[in-house]
Each structure stands twice: as structure tokens, then as C-alpha cells.
């Protein structure tokens, strides 16, 4: 027993003792027992008040009332378990999915980096503002830094105990039994020290590793790479591995779970000074005008964000002054370091996140409306209770507080349940999503496990929800006409009063309209998915293998690359089952684009045109016909002036004219003339035909990095193996990446498929909640208007007529809500179609089917409780009232 409880329990006895003693004293002084007792009581004062005062010492009034409210609320909710379960389930669904999606966003954008004392780490980004034309080379991140800028910030700041620079996403070929490409990071040599990240084996970098350019070929490998590629070899540290033709000594294996400081895991870390060895012929270190290094600083203890901004701002201004060329000012964006910190990443994440959160919030809105409906219906049952309490002198505010406590109890229970379901089911959902991603999609190092942010969000959402659905019913049911309510003959609220019915109808109508929006969005996305699956890209996509070769990355000079390419293509040509071989700068739908600005004679402005360098057999291999003019001949190379444009490009650039012989001029002044027109095909962007596109003849310049396309008539697996063998027989160190051309289509379809699946699930959930809402409203109003129905039947209405009446009453708000929903969705579908491939803005099938589907469901939800109305016996109905 607590001190408080014990003290209060013994208070009565204490007071009794006191009074007895005082009485006894009085008797001793000669009073009669009655007088003595009276005097004692008089001297003591009001016993009840003393007790109350003493209670108050231990329990502040508000707390006591809150406990009262909670206790009473729990009792009330337990008395109507059906309603409670329904409400809690609805809220759990609504809050659960919102918490789930929030934990993903939290993992992406708000979770600190998974390293010790991560709260001290800040990410530094810079944004240039040029006066007039400015130029800056950008590699990976427009807001990143050059090496000299990094050194400046590192050496002259007063706020960091260490500043790290790194270049992520460095592609490297790991020479091994089966050669494969990995993504790694080159870092400044304080990387592991500043991050306080001790490798599990061996060591991290030390200063001397970065002492001179290209001299220290050492590498730390990730735990994943160590286990996956080196079979967890316990003696790997000290051995050599070959990355992009250079041998590196493994000095450490990173701790499991440390995947670097970017969302896509890094497989290895090499010193910054090895950059040129990893990326041959690109010297980033000495380029002072290139953004390629991401910066992470660890602040000294006690240094605030403002101090960091001020201190680095001084350095930024000095660099601006020293900068030669057009005048510029640099502003710094400094944030706590997370996986998504840079302004670029945020500008992508924020709109996507807001669309997703809005869609999920809509479901919660439906759930709220639903529960508000339930509570309103119940409020009419509790009318007498409320009236009684009001007439006994309870303040209205006190009643509202009591009712709000009840709704908060519901919402917190629902929120807790929903959050638990969300956390528990999340692993499964992530699995479903990742299983729909293309197989070579990079894994994300995102931790979606709940943390304080997520819990706070769940709690805030629960409280908000509780007030959102509880306030209106609470305000309504505490405002009563005492007289009629207490007599019990007042028309039940909601059934009779126009305003009450209006409120119910509004709630149902808004549920239906929100549900309509979600269903239509889901419908549009599903239609988009369907058209993505069945689209005709305009070329023969089946039976083509593509081989991507980046020989430059693998240490080839142009001459060797051309030599390799020629022999490689000869070998493939000779393989059994190979029908045709072509070479191109970009394979169709490979997400590999090139484009440039061209001047067209007779037009003042330049036009943007995407292009591809191809060998002559490209068109025949892909089955794209030349509709006008001729194909390239094998002797044409980069020097040839002839180009081939697509039909639609020709139409746009030279409407109504013969495109053959027309000229296009590059910015450099070089002029090309059209020698042929190819049929339109969606080779660059699936679902888009309105981009200008032209073909250049390929030359030996393309051999360093290009795709080889192979049309085959045998099985793919055996062909892929013999192609890889062919490559290896020429050079065992070369990476030959063979895929089916069809697989590229998958990459285009994957986003639509994931989004369609998610939105379909959301739509289904919305529909479920909404039909429960309609069902609840109808069954409530039927049970409330039994007398009304009885009178109608007594006056000669038959069951069918009553049914029509009930249906009309219920379907009216549904119709109005659905109309509003359709209008809303028509307004926002433009946003959706811009985000997703193959989506018609006003797809008629979606806009007709989804409303019909919703009406059918609403009809069923009305019909079931409506049947009860048909079976009302007028005699019983009238008598029982």
C-alpha cells in the first residue's frame, strides 16, 4: 500500500480518536456527555470538509477528476463492447497504417546515422547563387564540395572535432571467380575516426594512408562483402583484392550493420587519394570546380548549430571572394546528418512523402468519421443519462470532458493496437515490396524499426484522432433540452431533428467522398499498371540479350577497348543461336540517356533532342522500320554528317515538309543533315512519345562504354553463359553483364506495380471502413424510426415501399459524397499521372467502374439493415413506444 493510500485510509480513525479525546477532556471539565461531544465537534469544524481538504493534499483536483473520468469511461465502454470493439478496430486500422508509413519516412529522413553519438554529426551542403552564368562540374551531388574546398573547411573551422569528406557510389569491378560490380566509397582518412566506427577486424584508415596520391592501395571491406564474396574468410585482413585493375591490401572489415553514410550500402572504403586509381582518367582531386565530395562534421561538445553555421559561413564567404570567374555567393545548408540530408534529396523526398502521407491520412479521416458516427448514435441512447447529470448541476464543460475522456480512451487503445500491428506487420510488407523490385535494384540500408519519433507520432496521432472524432458528439450530446429529454419522449436526437440527421448525413457523405477519391486513385493506378503491362513499346523486345560493357572503368584505353569490342562481337556472332548483333550507346529502356541542344534552321530557339549512337544493324535487330530515306551504312562513323530522326521528331521540327536533307546544328557549330526517318518507338522513355529523338552512327569512340544487343533463337541462360565465357576468353578480368532486354521493362513497371498494390490496399481499406459506416448509419436510423415505419405500414405501406424509403434516405448522402469525391479526384488526378507511367488523367474505365463499385457496396450495406425495416410489425412498433 502506498503512503498516500495508507494515510488516507487511516484518516477517519485518526479524526475519530481526536474527537473522543476532546470529548473526554470536556467531560473531565464537568460537561455532560452530550454537551462535551457537541463542543468537541464544534471546535473541530466541518469533518467532511476537513477530510476533503486532506484528500486534496494528496490528489490534485484535476487528477482526481481525470481518474474518475477514466474509471467511469472504461466502465461505460465495457458496457457496450460491440461499439467499443468496432471503434477501436476502425481507429487501429487508421492509425496503424499511418504509423507504418511514417516509420518508413522516419527511417529515410529523420533517423540519425547508425554510428555512435550520431547527434553530434552534421551534414554540410552548399548552394551556389551565380550572378549571371556560372559553371560548376557536378558529380553525384550538386550541393557537394571539391577537394580543395573540403581542405579549406577542414583546416579553418573552429566548430568540428573532425570533418569527413567522401565520394559515394564509386563503381568497381571486383576481380574474383565470378566477376561482379560493387559500389564503394572513397573517403578522407579520418572517416572511421570521426564516425567513431571501429572496424570489427583490422583497422580503419590513418593519416598516412592519405599522405600521397595513388600511393596507398588499402581498403576496408563491408561485412556484407566479406561474408558474401569472401566466405567470411577469417584471414582476409592482410590479403590483396583487385578493384578496377588495381590490387588493394585489405586492412579491415567493417562492423556488421555499418553500411556507410548513404542510403545505399557501401561495399568497401578506400582512401580519397586512391580516387584516380578507382576511376581511371578522371582526376577529381585536382579539379577545384567540381562538386563530388559529401561532407560530414562532428561538432565539438557544446557547439550549437548556429555556431556551426556562423563559423562555416565565414569560410564560405572567403572562398567566394577568392573564387575566380563570375561572381557568386554560396549559402550553406547544415542539418543533423541523416540518410537523406542534402537539399536535392529532400526536394525529391518531401513531395513524394506528402502525397503518400496525405493518402494515408485520408483513410484515418474515414475512420474518424466512422467512429464519430458511432458515438453520435450512442449519444442518443445516453441522452437521459446526460440530462440527469445536467439537471443535478454538472457543468457542461465537465460533461464534455467526461465524453472526451471516453473518446481519448478509445483512440489511445486503437492507436496502441494499430501501432503494434504496424510494427509487427511491417517486416512482411517490406518483404512484399522488395520482392516486387527488379532483382538488381540496390538494397536500401533503411531502418524502419520504431524509435521515439515514431512513438511520439503515434501518440500525437491518437490524441488528435480522439479529439477529432469525439469533440462534435461530445458538444452535441451535452447540449440538451432537459425537459423533453428527461421525460424520455423527446424525439431521439439524430432521427427526428433536422440538424441531427444533417450531421449524420454529412459524416457519411464525407466518408464516401474521401473513399471515392482513394478508390479512384487506386483505379487509375491499376489502369496504369495494366497499360504498363500490355504496352507495345514499338520494337521487338523479346529474344534480345543486352550486354553492358564499361571498359573505360575497367582500365582500358580507347585503342584496347576497340580491339576488345571487335573481337568480342566476332566471338558472339559465331555463337550458335545468335541471329544478329548490334552495338549502341544506350540500350532501349535502360535508363541511360544522352541529350543535347540543337539549332534548327528557320527557328530562333534551340530544341532539346535525345540521341543515341548506333551501328547499322540496330534498327533491323529491334524491328524498327526505316520509313523514309536510308539506314546507316557500316562505313559511317562519328565523322559522317548523316543522322536519322524519328517520325514524330520530323513532324515536330519540320511540320508538313520533307525531313530528308534538313539540317540540325550542334551548339559547337557542327552541322548534320537528315538521311533517314525511323518509325517511332519508345526506346528512351516508356509511355512517352513526345520526346525528340535522333540517331548518330556509332564509331570507335563508343567502344569504351556501350551496350551490345544480341538477337538470339536459343535459350537465354546457355547463351548468357557462352557470352560471358567469350568475354573472359579475351580478357579474364573483364566484367560482362548480360541481361534480357525484357528485364529493362520490369524496371519501368516496378514503381507502378508497387504503388498500385499499395493504393489498391488503401482503397480496399477505405471501402471497408466506409461500408461499415453506411451500414452503421442505416441500422441506427432504422432502429430509431421503428415507430415511423410502423405508422407508415399501419397506413398501408408495404415492405417494398418502406425499403425504398430507407434506401433513398441512406443513398442520398452516399450519392452526394460520391459526386464530390469524383470531382475532387478529377482535380487531383493530374498530379498522379505526372508521377506514374501510363496513367490517363481521366481514364473513363476507372471513372465509371469505381463509382459503380462503390454504389454497389453502399447498396448492400444499406440493404442488409434495411430488411429489418421491412419486417417491422406495425402493432408491436406502435405499442412499445
Amino acid at each position: 500500500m502506498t503512503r498516500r493510500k495508507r494515510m488516507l485510509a487511516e484518516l477517519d480513525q485518526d479524526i475519530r480518536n481526536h474527537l473522543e479525546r476532546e470529548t473526554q477532556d470536556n467531560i473531565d471539565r464537568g460537561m455532560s456527555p452530550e454537551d462535551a461531544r457537541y463542543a468537541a465537534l464544534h471546535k473541530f469544524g466541518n469533518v467532511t470538509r476537513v477530510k476533503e481538504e486532506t484528500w486534496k493534499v494528496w490528489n490534485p483536483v484535476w487528477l482526481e477528476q481525470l481518474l474518475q473520468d477514466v474509471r467511469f469511461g472504461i466502465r461505460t465502454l465495457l458496457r457496450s463492447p460491440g461499439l467499443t470493439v468496432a471503434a477501436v478496430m476502425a481507429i487501429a486500422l487508421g492509425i496503424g497504417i499511418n504509423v507504418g508509413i511514417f516509420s518508413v519516412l522516419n527511417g529515410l529522413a529523420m533517423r540519425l546515422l547508425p554510428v555512435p553519438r550520431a547527434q553530434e554529426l552534421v551534414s554540410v551542403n552548399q548552394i551556389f547563387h551565380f550572378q549571371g552564368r556560372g559553371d560548376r562540374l557536378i558529380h553525384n551531388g550538386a550541393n557537394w564540395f571539391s577537394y580543395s574546398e573540403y581542405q579549406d573547411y577542414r583546416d579553418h573551422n573552429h566548430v568540428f572535432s573532425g570533418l569527413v569528406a567522401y565520394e559515394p557510389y564509386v563503381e568497381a569491378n571486383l576481380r574474383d571467380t565470378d566477376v561482379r560490380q560493387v559500389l564503394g566509397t572513397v573517403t578522407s582518412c579520418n572517416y572511421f575516426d570521426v564516425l567513431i566506427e571501429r572496424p570489427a577486424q583490422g583497422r580503419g584508415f590513418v593519416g598516412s594512408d592519405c599522405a600521397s596520391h595513388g600511393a596507398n592501395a588499402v581498403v576496408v571491406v563491408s561485412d556484407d562483402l566479406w561474408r558474401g564474396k569472401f566466405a567470411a574468410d577469417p584471414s582476409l585482413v592482410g590479403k590483396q583484392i583487385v578493384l578496377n585493375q588495381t590490387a588493394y591490401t585489405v586492412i579491415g572489415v567493417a562492423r556488421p550493420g555499418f553500411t556507410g553514410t548513404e542510403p545505399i550500402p557501401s561495399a568497401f572504403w578506400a582512401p580519397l587519394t586512391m580516387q584516380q586509381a578507382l576511376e581511371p582518367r578522371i582526376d577529381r582531386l585536382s579539379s577545384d570546380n567540381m562538386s563530388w565530395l559529401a561532407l560530414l562534421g562532428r561538432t565539438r561538445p557544446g557547439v550549437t548549430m548556429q555556431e556551426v553555421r556562423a563559423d562555416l559561413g565565414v569560410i564560405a564567404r572567403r572562398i567566394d571572394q577568392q573564387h575566380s570567374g563570375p561572381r557568386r555567393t554560396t549559402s550553406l545548408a547544415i542539418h543533423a546528418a541523416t540518410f537523406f540530408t542534402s537539399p536535392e534529396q529532400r526536394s525529391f523526398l518531401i513531395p513524394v512523402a506528402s502525397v503518400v502521407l496525405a493518402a494515408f491520412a485520408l483513410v484515418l479521416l474515414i475512420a474518424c468519421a466512422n467512429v464519430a458516427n458511432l458515438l453520435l448514435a450512442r449519444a442518443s441512447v445516453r441522452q437521459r443519462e446526460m440530462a440527469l447529470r445536467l439537471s443535478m448541476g454538472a457543468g457542461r464543460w465537465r460533461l464534455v470532458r467526461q465524453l472526451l475522456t471516453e473518446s481519448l480512451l478509445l483512440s489511445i487503445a486503437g492507436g496502441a493496437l494499430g501501432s503494434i500491428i504496424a510494427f509487427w506487420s511491417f517486416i512482411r510488407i517490406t518483404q512484399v515490396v522488395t520482392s516486387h523490385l527488379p532483382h538488381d535494384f540496390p538494397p536500401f540500408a533503411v531502418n524502419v524499426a520504431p524509435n521515439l519519433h515514431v512513438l511520439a507520432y503515434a501518440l500525437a496521432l491518437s490524441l488528435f484522432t480522439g479529439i477529432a472524432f469525439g469533440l462534435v458528439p461530445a458538444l452535441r450530446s451535452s447540449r440538451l433540452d432537459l425537459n423533453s429529454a428527461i421525460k424520455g419522449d423527446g424525439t431521439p436526437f439524430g432521427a427526428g431533428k433536422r440538424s441531427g440527421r444533417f450531421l449524420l448525413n454529412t459524416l457519411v457523405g464525407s466518408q464516401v467522398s474521401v473513399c471515392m477519391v482513394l478508390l479512384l486513385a487506386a483505379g487509375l493506378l491499376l489502369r496504369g499498371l495494366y497499360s504498363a503491362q500490355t504496352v507495345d513499346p514499338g520494337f521487338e523486345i523479346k529474344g534480345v540479350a543486352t550486354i553492358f560493357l564499361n571498359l573505360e572503368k575497367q582500365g582500358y584505353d580507347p585503342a584496347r577497348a576497340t580491339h576488345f569490342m571487335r573481337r568480342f562481337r566476332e566471338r558472339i556472332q559465331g555463337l550458335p543461336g545468335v541471329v544478329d548483333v548490334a552495338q549502341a550507346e544506350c540500350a532501349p529502356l535502360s535508363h541511360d540517356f544522352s541529350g543535347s541542344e540543337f539549332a534548327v534552321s528557320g527557328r530562333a530557339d534551340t530544341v532539346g533532342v535525345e540521341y543515341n549512337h548506333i551501328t547499322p544493324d540496330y534498327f533491323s535487330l529491334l524491328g524498327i522500320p526505316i520509313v523514309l530515306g536510308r539506314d546507316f551504312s557500316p562505313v559511317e562513323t562519328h565523322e559522317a554528317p548523316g543522322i536519322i530522326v524519328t517520325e514524330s521528331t520530323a513532324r515536330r521540327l519540320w511540320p508538313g515538309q520533307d525531313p530528308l536533307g534538313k539540317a540540325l546544328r550542334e551548339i559547337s557549330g557542327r552541322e548534320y543533315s537528315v538521311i533517314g526517318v525511323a518509325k517511332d518507338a519508345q526506346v528512351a522513355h516508356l509511355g512517352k512519345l513526345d520526346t525528340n529523338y535522333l540517331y548518330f552512327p556509332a564509331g570507335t569512340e563508343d567502344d569504351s562504354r556501350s551496350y551490345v544487343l544480341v538477337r538470339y533463337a536459343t535459350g537465354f541462360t546457355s547463351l548468357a553463359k557462352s557470352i560471358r565465357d567469350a568475354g573472359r576468353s579475351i580478357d579474364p578480368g573483364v566484367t560482362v553483364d548480360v541481361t534480357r532486354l525484357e528485364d529493362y521493362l520490369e524496371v519501368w513497371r516496378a514503381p507502378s506495380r508497387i504503388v498500385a498494390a499499395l493504393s489498391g490496399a488503401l482503397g480496399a481499406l477505405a471501402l471497408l471502413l466506409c461500408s461499415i459506416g453506411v451500414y452503421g448509419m442505416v441500422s441506427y436510423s432504422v432502429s430509431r424510426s421503428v415507430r415511423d415505419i410502423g405508422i407508415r405500414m399501419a397506413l398501408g405501406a408495404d415492405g417494398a415501399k418502406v425499403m425504398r424509403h430507407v434506401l433513398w434516405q441512406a443513398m442520398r448522402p452516399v450519392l452526394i459524397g460520391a459526386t464530390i469525391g469524383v470531382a475532387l479526384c478529377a482535380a487531383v488526378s493530374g498530379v498522379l499521372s505526372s508521377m506514374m507511367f501510363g496513367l490517363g488523367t481521366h481514364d473513363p474505365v476507372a471513372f465509371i467502374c469505381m463509382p459503380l463499385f462503390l454504389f454497389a457496396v453502399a447498396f448492400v450495406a444499406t440493404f442488409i439493415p434495411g430488411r429489418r425495416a421491412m419486417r417491422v410489425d406495425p402493432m408491436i412498433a406502435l405499442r412499445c413506444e
Partner: protein
Amino acid sequence: MSTREKNERIELLQGTLDLLILRTLQLGPMHGHAISKAIEFRSDDVLQVEQGSLYPALHRLIKRRWISAEDGTSENNRRAKFYALTSKGKQQLAVEAGKWDKLARAIAQILRPGEQEEA
């Protein structure tokens, strides 16, 4: 109760009851009735505590852990609750008494200027 009596008795200032209880308990553990009697007696009956108001005050002091409550047996062999000063309460008594002295001096100075120097 006669008029004369009423005039001579003084209503307690807010918070002074706490101080009086602490001071009284310095004499040793007592039960509630004894505390009120002691206050009346030691002030020559000038300070009349409304006995009931003792109890909220006692509980307030217990909550602050300045006094403790123990079950015990009273002089006439009856079970009663005995209140006793804790060490924290002793410190607090010194603090409160000091404050009170200051206050009393300050008020006296305002009411009877000049007398203070003589005293």
C-alpha cells in the same frame, strides 16, 4: 463563546500552522489531539487552532516528508497515530523559524519605528 474571548484570539496566518506544528513536534512525537492542545497551551490560549485544519496540514507535511506518522499507543493505552519530526523536517524548521523572525522584525519595524533600536 463570549465576545471578549473572540477578540483576544488570533486567526492564524496562512502557512504559520505548519511552522507551529514543526515546532511543537520538536518536543517529541505526538498524536493529533495532543498537538492542537500543545499549541493552544503554549500560546496561553491566544492561538486557537480550528482543530480540524490540523489534519490537512499534517498530511501536507507528511507529503513533503518533513514529518512521519507511526502507529503507537497513547498514555491511556489506546492505539493512536503519532507524528514525529524527520531530519528533513528539523532542517526545515530552522529555515522557517529564521524566515518568521525576519518577517516579525520587519513588520515590527514598520509598525513601531524607533522602538527597534531600543530593543
